[in-house]
């Protein structure tokens, strides 16, 4: 008796476990809105239903853990009050975000309705997979929205096959960060060209005193976006007219400059550094120069993160032989799920979140947006140090609208490019064969795109 009861128990337990596992797998995110921005009392049963066309509706928004998301969350209750719509927010780290979206879209999920995405990293793939709803029909519906006010190059970044895949929310350019105090003490001018940068980095490089000349991303894939401005500055690019061009003399020169700067004047361990480590060591006051995106400037100027917060200077990206050509791109955009049940509601949210008024508010919190009118508005730049504003305005002029190879399979292409630079950093002298091989790999990736 006792035995059979035990078996019953065992069987039942297995069943229960299996059921809970299955439930865990099938569950969607409707109910677990983890963010604090939702008020638990949902339907505001007011009588003005006519003025609130979205009364009783709800959308799901998925964001990255990004300062923009932190800035928009406190504003959402206003939007909910004005439209009667309920917005459920979930936030994830970058990598998990891509994974979550990929899995949900593959499963044909109706949620999330609206999500943050990186147009240059995932835009093409997501669009070609039919996961993004093109927004062309919406953007010009409401004249008050003033779509033309959003920077052309930013929209260009978020456009796939001539269709608008998403609306830009964060733009960024590569700039030069430097230590004002060190340059002043050594009597060095702020470098205006790459050659001057190399000379200055060499002068300030003193490893015996724990001082290094230059730091930037050294990890294989993350470094690709930051080497891109070096590439454009030499008149090179990742590809031209469907031909891979990362083994041209100009490209190899640019890669060599970047790799050699890091190898000869970089801190130890730079091969394993992405931006958090690069900003980390810069913030500890151990490095004189750093090149990375301007949107990350708070990591260098926030006293909580940086010991040299008041000594950081900003400068436009140094010029190569073809001039100063930093990337000027949309790093984050908002898009609508092609399977979303209520695309009108989803667009209503995007329209609000990227309106002049809201972009002004998020930009005041230090999130560089894409609206020209907000940049022209003196209030729009209060979130940035004045010196940085000047640099941004300068950088936007000659900017290039991509910072990585514009192919569908960005991940693979980045690894191909990154290998060249990593080989230079590990001391490979004969770099042309490495570049030729990487170029072949990149060409194969480009050719694959044509069949899709």
């Amino acid at each position: 008796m006792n035995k059979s009861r035990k078996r019953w128990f065992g069987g039942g337990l297995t069943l229960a476990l299996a059921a809970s596992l299955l439930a865990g797998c099938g569950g969607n995110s409707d109910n677990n809105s983890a963010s604090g921005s939702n008020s638990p009392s949902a339907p505001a049963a007011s009588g003005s239903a006519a003025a609130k066309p979205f009364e009783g509706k709800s959308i799901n928004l998925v964001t990255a853990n990004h300062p923009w998301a932190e800035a928009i969350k406190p504003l959402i209750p206003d939007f909910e009050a004005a439209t009667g719509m309920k917005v459920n927010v979930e936030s994830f780290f970058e990598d998990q975000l891509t994974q979550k979206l990929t899995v949900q879209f593959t499963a044909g999920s109706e949620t999330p309705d609206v999500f943050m995405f990186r147009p240059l990293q995932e835009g093409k793939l997501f669009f070609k997979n039919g996961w993004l709803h093109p927004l062309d029909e919406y953007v010009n519906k409401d004249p008050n929205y003033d779509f033309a006010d959003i920077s052309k190059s930013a929209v260009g970044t978020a456009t796939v096959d001539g269709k608008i895949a998403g609306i830009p929310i964060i733009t960024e350019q590569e700039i030069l960060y430097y230590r004002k105090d060190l340059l002043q003490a050594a009597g060095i001018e702020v470098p205006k060209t790459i050659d001057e940068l190399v000379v200055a980095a060499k002068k300030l490089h003193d490893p015996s005193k724990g001082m290094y000349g230059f730091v930037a991303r050294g990890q294989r894939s993350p470094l690709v976006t930051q080497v891109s401005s070096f590439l454009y500055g030499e008149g090179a690019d990742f590809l031209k007219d469907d031909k891979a061009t990362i083994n041209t003399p100009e490209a190899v020169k640019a890669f060599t400059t970047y790799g050699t700067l890091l190898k000869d004047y970089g801190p130890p361990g730079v091969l394993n550094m992405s931006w958090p480590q690069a900003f980390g060591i810069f913030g500890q006051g151990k490095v004189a120069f750093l090149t990375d995106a301007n949107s990350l400037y708070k990591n260098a100027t926030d006293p909580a993160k940086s010991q040299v917060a008041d000594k950081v200077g900003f400068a436009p990206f140094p010029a190569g032989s073809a001039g100063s050509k930093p990337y000027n791109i949309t790093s984050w955009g908002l898009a609508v799920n092609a399977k979303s049940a209520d695309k009108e509601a989803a667009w209503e949210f995007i329209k609000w979140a990227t309106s002049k008024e809201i972009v002004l508010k998020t930009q005041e919190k230090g999130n560089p947006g894409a609206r020209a009118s907000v940049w022209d508005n003196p209030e729009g730049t209060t979130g940035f140090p004045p010196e940085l504003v000047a640099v941004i305005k300068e950088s936007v002029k000659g900017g290039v609208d991509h910072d990585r190879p514009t192919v569908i399979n960005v991940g693979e292409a980045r690894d191909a490019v990154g290998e060249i630079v990593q080989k230079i950093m590990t001391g490979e002298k004969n770099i042309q064969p490495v570049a030729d091989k990487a170029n072949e790999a990149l060409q194969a990736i480009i050719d694959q795109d044509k069949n899709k």
Partner: protein
Amino acid sequence: MYTSWFDRNLKWIYVLPAVIFVLVMMLFPILYTVRISFFEWSMSAITPPKWVGFDNYKTLLTQERFWKATGHTISFTLVAMVLEVILGVAIAMLLSRQFRGKNFVKTVFLLPMVATPVAMGLVWLLIYEPTIGAANMLLKSMGLKPLLWLASPNQALSSLIIVDVWQWTPMIALIVMAGLATIPSEPYEAADVDGAGRWRKFVSITLPLLKPTILVAAMLRLIDVLKTFDIIYATTQGGPNLSTETLNIYGYVLGFQYFKLGTASSLLVLFFGLVMGLTLFMIWMRKRMEGQYD
């Protein structure tokens, strides 16, 4: 009516939940992976998966990167496992004696095992930091030259092996300690009568009697080390320059960074075969060794 039907089929009904669980949660994913491995698919909702036969396998097997990853997986696994078994047995022998504070020491030894791997990975990332990390401070204090650790393509894999050994040796020690407790005391008494020394007793009595336990521990560890993902992903993501990219990491990259679900699946099928093969080999070896003492 119903009762008699139930009674007759009771043996099937009882196992049904377990069978369904295995089918849905284990067999289905494996078979589905095998199926996708013959397709080219970027998870598109528009373009359906395209049948490519054995192309995905061909791509992998002719690729330098795949074989390098296989090499990293095997050398990481073997070195880590052997070190863990040797250290684990040694620690178990030490802890099997009676001394003051034994329970405290035992608990401390088990701590690495219960810690979250990703958190530990991040802690080791700091320890290995070339400029400010504890590992180089230690080396410098001993008058040795500082190393680059995870940041050097030549040292990264060894550095990761150290982390794995640190984390999982306690598990081997735990299993071996349990095995030690089951060894009868008579052989030792007989050996004392014969005048055998400590080392002789260890080699001629303890080790042979522990062999089955050690093999089980080694097998469990082998399967686990082969599948190591968390500490590598949390520290190097396979870098620098792919020097720590194991099959598991490469599979993840193929799937979630390159979005090549077909190729990723065929890699996982090959990987599954490798784990299966090594496990069967270990089981076969265990049987053969057990046979020696029959």
